[in-house]
């Protein structure tokens, strides 16, 4: 039995409980155990969660999970679909079952069932992730609930499933996939934050570097020329800005002299065409002018890697430009505005940016040591919305300061690392893979949630595991972790 892991688990839920009390103590009845307040309710959730933990650890046979995983998976999938039709609309999402006093989200349980089935699949005798058929099967196991959750308008929860890629990586999926997904995300975010120019330059830089290292031919020479190209292109926007500022200064000068100052100044001045030339035109012109030459070279010298790079560049450029389309036409309003605020495209502090800004203010005002338990002003006066659920980390940041944040994040890192190391020690393929699934889920929640509160990630409404107020989430993570503990303990028995 891994008591350290259980210790960290208990520590985290107690920290969560105290912070829920701190976040709500001015607006709600005043005791930790007052059951009308959220802290009191959370206490009940904690007790029941501990009951569940005992049940899983000591009463249920660990092998049950592997055996029942498929019916469980199908059942949960049914719930996921059902909830779309029977749920009420909560902030635009249809993901909550409303059972009188209790509300729960099947998406939380689905993490468990998906983890179990994925582990079962991977632990099959002939399973090899490098085989296309197995890869597709794994993708289906992950992708189906993910898509249904997207259909519930819970994109945030669905994003957590992307974490299962780490599990597949551990099981032998090529590192190129991770790199590729990373690059696609970087291009997407880069396009939205810094604009297409920088993302295409990033794409070009990555491809040139890959090509220099992996392709045929002299590496130093390729690196040198690639470096020069990227450097010149990186300086280009500043140069163009400088030119445009000259043009603008001249237009200003002209505007004073010409009798209708409001008419479009830009049309009067010859050099103002420079204002219309964007660096990206130059970059794209250079890029696409060199493609046929490089393509011919790749064909002549049979440089497959170069050929793939060219294709990747074209696809990447298409992705960058379609990003704008996706952003404008595929994402929903609230998602778009959240991303816009996150990416700093819109400093809309009173509207969609309100949450993030208030959250950053609350955390930022904590300083090194924080303001002390119950002393936070930002969180207790209710400037931060969703204070006890999704934004619970603000309370940690404000009242416990950087030291508090460091401790909490260290506890999570310990929890995740400990699960990974425990999983590595397992001989059973099922247990090991399941451990990785648990670690991935916790990691994704951790990174997305804290990233959101500090403004690194968009506002995606998912809870911080074990800390956020709410039974559904606490139960789900408790079950997730304790199934692993039970399996791990079981493992020790046999070997």
């Amino acid at each position: 039995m891994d008591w350290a892991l259980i210790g960290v688990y208990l520590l985290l839920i107690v920290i969560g409980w105290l912070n829920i009390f701190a976040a709500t103590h001015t607006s709600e009845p005043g005791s930790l155990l007052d059951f009308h307040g959220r802290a009191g309710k959370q206490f009940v959730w904690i007790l029941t969660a501990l009951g569940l933990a005992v049940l899983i650890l000591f009463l249920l046979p660990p092998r049950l999970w592997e055996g029942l995983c498929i019916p469980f998976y199908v059942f949960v999938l049914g719930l996921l679909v059902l909830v779309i039709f029977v749920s009420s609309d909560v902030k635009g999402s249809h993901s909550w079952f409303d059972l009188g006093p209790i509300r729960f989200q099947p998406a939380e349980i689905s993490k468990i069932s998906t983890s179990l089935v994925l582990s079962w699949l991977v632990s099959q005798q002939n399973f090899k992730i490098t085989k296309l058929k197995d890869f597709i099967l794994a993708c289906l196991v992950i992708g189906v609930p993910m898509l249904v959750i997207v259909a519930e308008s819970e994109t945030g929860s669905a994003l957590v499933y992307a974490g299962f890629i780490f599990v597949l990586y551990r099981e032998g999926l090529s590192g190129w996939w991770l790199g590729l997904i990373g690059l696609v995300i970087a291009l997407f975010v880069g396009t939205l934050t810094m604009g297409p120019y920088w993302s295409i330059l990033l794409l070009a830089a990555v491809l040139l570097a890959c090509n220099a290292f992996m392709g045929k031919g002299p590496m130093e020479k390729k690196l040198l020329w690639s470096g020069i190209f990227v450097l010149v292109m990186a300086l280009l926007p500043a140069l163009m800005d400088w030119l445009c500022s000259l043009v603008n200064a001249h237009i200003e000068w002209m505007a004073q002299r010409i009798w209708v100052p409001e008419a479009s100044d830009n049309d009067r001045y010859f050099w103002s065409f420079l204002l219309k030339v964007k660096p990206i035109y130059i970059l794209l012109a250079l890029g696409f002018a060199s493609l046929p030459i490089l393509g011919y070279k790749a064909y002549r010298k049979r440089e497959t890697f170069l050929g793939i790079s060219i294709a990747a560049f074209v696809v990447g450029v298409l992705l960058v430009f379609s990003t704008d389309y996706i952003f404008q036409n595929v994402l929903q309003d609230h998602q778009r505005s959240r991303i816009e605020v996150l990416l700093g495209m819109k400093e809309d502090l009173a509207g969609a940016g309100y949450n993030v800004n208030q959250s950053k203010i609350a955390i930022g005002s904590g300083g090194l040591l924080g303001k002390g338990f119950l002393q936070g002003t930002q969180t207790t006066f209710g400037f931060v919305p969703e204070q006890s659920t999704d934004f619970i980390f603000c309370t940690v940041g404000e009242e416990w300061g950087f030291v508090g944040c460091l401790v909490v994040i260290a506890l999570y890192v310990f929890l995740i690392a400990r699960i990974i190391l425990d999983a590595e020690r397992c001989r059973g393929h099922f247990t090991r893979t399941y451990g990785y699934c648990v670690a991935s889920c916790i990691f994704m929640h951790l990174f997305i949630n804290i990233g959101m509160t500090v403004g690194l990630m968009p506002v995606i409404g998912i809870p911080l595991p074990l800390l956020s107020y709410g039974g559904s989430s606490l139960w789900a993570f408790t079950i997730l972790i304790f199934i692993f503990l039970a399996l791990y303990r079981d493992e020790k028995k046999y070997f």
Partner: protein
Amino acid sequence: MDSEGRHIRLLIGLGAAALLLLGKIFSLQIVNSRYKEDADRNSTIYETIYPTRGVIYDRNGEVLVGNKVAYDILVSPREVQAFDTVALATVLGVEPDFIRSKLDDYHRRRSSIGFQAVTMMRMVPSEVYMRFDEVKYKFPGFRGQVRGIRDYPVNAGGNLLGYVSEVNQAYIDRHPGEYRSGDYAGMTGIEAAREKDLRGEKGYHIYLRNSRNQIEQSYKDGAEDKEAIPGHDIVTTIDAQLQQYGQELMQNKVGSIVAIEPSTGEILALVSSPGVDVSQLADIGKYWNEIAQNPYKPMYNRAVQASYPPGSVFKLVNGLIGLQEGVLRPEMMYPCSKGYHFGAGHKLGCHGHKSPINMEESIMMSCNAYYCYVLKNILDNDKYANVAEGLDAWHEYVESFGFGRKLGSDFPAELAGSIPTSKTYNRVYRRGGWNSTTVISLSIGQGEILATPMHLANLCATIANRGYYYIPHIIKASEGVEIDSRFYEKQYTKVDTVHFPKVIRGMWRAVNSGAGMGGTAWIAHIDSLDVCGKTGTAQNPRGADNSVFICFAPMDNPKIAIAAYVENGGFGATYAAPMASLMVEKYLKGSVSRTALEERMKQANLMSRVKRD
């Protein structure tokens, strides 16, 4: 399988992700102090107090531009409750649909507006606001904000004063950090020239609010509030009465009058006609299309921007250069047989007057032929290797009078005009392909010479001062308002001061010889004021000649130098000379005795002669 070491890589990735989060938290909590300040400020809300814009005075303390109170109507859409749209519309004097469409618009933009207040109506007059104020309790979410607007007690002309309007995005971008949307700024004229003094500093009230942005009370009873600092008042060099009189004289004519006090370079009047009426200035946005579409271009400030051929007025410059170069002596006589004949059958015509004449008489009678000889002698002077060198020497002289360059006035948007150099003609006729007869029109201020009315007034002031000028300027130094030291420095021309009295004698005779004696400007004569003047009749390729006149008075110790330029006005003596003379009389005597002349000038309507674009 090569996945053995992969858990290490994943653990490294986990550590990196944790460090990324901690790094960001570190920057929020330890590095960046902005958030601590924001936290303190979180519960406070700042309401801008706009400063009163500085008042613009004339040189005698009369108000040219003042302020009057108006209001902006603000709406906080989230606080608006159901209300009687028609009642509100009636109170505010707008259509109910206007309010509906505004509120619909705010509803569409609700996420970006959030809890903020937005401006629904601008510059509501105080009568209307008072009505609204009585009933505003019925309309939660709506409130008024005091906003001064400009008031113009004197009709001093829109081009001189300039207008104030809300800054647009381009303006904000051009002045980074200085303006925010909703601010006003002076865009033209004096308002633009002294924007930095006039605008003042914004202040703010701090209110406490709760997290739903409802204002609860004044923060620390206003102890931390910052009062707006009103803009500096500006004293201009303008004489309000003279300016207004000039406006009246120039009505229904296209052109300009510029009057300067020679002993200081202070601009007494700067009239550009047609101009924007001051009644339209305060709310110029409303009249913008009308003004922009007016074919006479009322926003075009002819006094400093229109480049005209100066005509015969320029003979004074050529005479002075001739004297300085030693190729002309006052007693030199030249013949004039109704013009100057050159080449085979070419002639630059002149009007009938006695012949031959000396220099004084040439100024008095404005003989063209005389100045053809003068210019020819300047350009073909043996001390210059060729005519090109001669012309460049001439150009240097002319430029020293301020022509062909910006004078450096503090009035915005001044233009330079142009004076040709040898390069100008080399380009047209190729090098060596031209001689002094090619450019002979320069002698009488025609051809490639272009100058603004301000240049001509400055020439007049230079002659009045016998050889130097002060850079014309429109702002007087006053408490808290500095003017540049360059306005206190004498600017000497390259012509020796001893030569000026000889020219002035001719100008005196042009005005004071009495009718019938051949003096071109006898109509400008004023009893007991020794007015010295020079007429000009400049060709206008777009119709009738332009009427030009410069004069100063009195001859000794001059108090005013003036240039009048009337497009399509005909002879200099027809319009420009009487108008300039009337201005002089008005300024020096306080009232005008020649009422018949005054009336004739005011009534004259030349607009039909002016070709429109």
